[in-house]
């Protein structure tokens, strides 16, 4: 919501100017996005966004609803392919491979770039089978013992093993919402991805469950590159090293999180983080 006419006009004129403020490059990039444009039918959703995502960093993407941050996230593992009207243009490199190339195998891409969704979506199977599914379809375990090891390790990394070790046969839908979300994270970790995308992973959770997930993100950073979309600015401030601010399909500003939240360079960013619209 805009709080006055003037700001509305300003944002409109800013939206036309798609230059990104701040430093989009990092020294050791894992993902390089160049001039990404996304359209839903004829409607542009993301306008010429370029950004690097570094190794072992947590990148937070913030911005008002409908600004394109989730759409951008879903480009990174080509989940936008599942939406028929959606068209993605530009170049997106993961380890020097253009993942937007039609020839890229989305199956192996999604094994490398895992995703955690907004609402916990465990499969209606047992907790064990939820985690074991990914390794099974990718043939990562030769036998039951190896599979057990992957499942237990993943649950442990997701901080869930102690809570569910006695009821691995219980349905994944029977545990609490926060546990379900950590189960989904364990499920994602189990296929040993390089990058984990998180699309507002805490928006359906209570503060305690949220705190646990945030701790987990902090731990996971050591082994994975994490891109997280969030509505909660405090969360972005707590978990991320870098923050990207999206506005009406434009990547407005990128920078170290501390800088974005203290001395934002762009007027829109400042308006957003000071709560003038959201």
């Amino acid at each position, binding site marked *: 919501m805009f709080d006055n006419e003037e700001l509305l006009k300003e944002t409109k004129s800013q939206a036309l100017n798609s230059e990104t403020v701040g430093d989009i490059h990092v020294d050791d990039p894992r993902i390089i996005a160049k001039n990404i444009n996304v359209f839903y039918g004829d409607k542009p959703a993301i306008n010429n966004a370029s950004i690097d995502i570094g190794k072992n960093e947590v990148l937070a993407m913030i911005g008002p609803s409908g600004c394109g941050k989730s759409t951008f996230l879903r480009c990174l593992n080509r989940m936008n392919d599942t939406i028929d009207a959606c068209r993605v243009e530009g170049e997106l490199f993961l380890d020097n491979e253009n993942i937007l190339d039609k020839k890229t195998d989305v*199956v192996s891409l999604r094994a490398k770039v*895992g*995703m955690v969704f907004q609402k916990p979506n465990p499969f*209606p199977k047992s907790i064990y089978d939820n985690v074991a599914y990914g390794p099974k379809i990718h043939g990562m375990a030769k036998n039951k013992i190896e599979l057990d090891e992957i499942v237990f390790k993943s649950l442990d990394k997701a901080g869930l093993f102690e809570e569910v070790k006695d009821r691995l046969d219980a*349905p994944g839908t029977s545990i609490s919402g926060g546990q379900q979300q950590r189960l989904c994270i364990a499920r*994602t970790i189990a*296929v040993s991805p390089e990058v984990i995308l998180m699309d507002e992973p805490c928006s359906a959770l209570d503060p305690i469950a949220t705190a646990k997930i945030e701790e987990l993100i902090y731990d996971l950073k050591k082994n994975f590159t994490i891109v997280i979309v969030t509505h909660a600015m405090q969360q972005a401030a707590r978990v991320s090293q870098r923050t990207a601010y999206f506005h009406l399909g434009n990547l407005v500003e990128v920078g170290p999180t501390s800088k974005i939240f203290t001395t934002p360079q762009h007027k829109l960013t400042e308006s957003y983080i000071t709560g003038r619209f959201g």
Partner: protein
Amino acid sequence: MNNLKSRIAKEKRFKAYGIISITTALTLLTILFVSIFSQGYTAFQETRIQLPVYFDQEILDPNKTNDWNIIKKANFNGLVKQSIRNLFPEVSGRSNKRKLYKIVSSSAEYQIRNIVNNDLSIIGSKQNIWVLADDDVDMLIKGNINRNLPENERRIDDQELMWIEYLESENLIKKVFNKTLFSSGDSSESEQSGILVALLGSFYALLITLVLSFPIGIATAVYLEEFAPKDNKFVDFIEVNINNLAAVPSIIFGLLGLAIFLNFFEMPRSAPLVGGMVLSLMTLPRIIIPARAALKSVPPSIREGALGLGASNVQAVFNHVLPIATPGMLTGTIIGMAQALGESAPLLIIGMVAFIVDIPQGFTDPATTLPVQIYLWADTPERGFVERTAAVIMVLLIFLVLMNSLAIYLRKKFEKNIT
């Protein structure tokens, strides 16, 4: 305050409407069931009369050949008549005797013939055999003919009544479970008619329907819902057609079957094979539509979760979407099958409405089905067929209830597995 009162009153009134309509529906159903059951339950018993049969060597095998091929041509009818005369030696006169013979069903001679066929050594001995009574006697014993009516208003005259009452007093007449009903085909004599042909016909036809329409229907639903390109004119065209087919009157499918299966492909008339094929045409849209609805109701987050883990589209569908959609798809299928079981119109057109005595041995032998048998017997005025009609309706209803219960059971079972 006033507003709140009127709102509460409104809610109460609305609840009352609901209760009234449910009660009305239940009452009507009860009336229907009571009328069918009260007419039909007697059909599950049949009346038998004990005859003292003397397997006379002179009649059966005068040359003592002991060879069935010769004995089978013997005058069994005469043997039965002689046995009846033995029961009532005092009856004399041609017309009286003829009347007397009619208290026993005409099937008695075949029953006795079978007994001899099974055991030739019985020839020369005397046995008490329970033979089937004629349908009029059956009706009288079951109380469907009022004995107190004046003679000219009942189908059994005073003399016949006297004989029957004599048999009753001697305990030579009794009601037993009606095996004939479940072991024989149609007959012009109601006491000899049964529903086995219809039961087998329904079974064979439904088997064909299931085998054809279940895999095709489910595969179609899965393809259209999960794999078909969206916004494609051809796919839209197919969808519209499937939805239209579900609304086509079933008799049209019968005409289609007549034109294509019978006239063009020259398949056998009256056969459960063709009946099943016609019923599958009718059942296909009724399976596809609920199956698609079941697939559609699977939350997209499950599909996304699987895809996000790197599952291919096929893996996501078969490992996650299908198991969740199974109860819905099975329910749709079973209800579609139940509808097919109760269908008669298309079968009339392809000739499954026939007087068929011989038990069908396979998919291509002529047969009828349960609803068609109801249609056939409901047309006959005889009292014996009236109760048998009600009995077939009961059998059909029992099968329908069983199938629907199975649908509910499966749904509950699979739902339990999922959550």
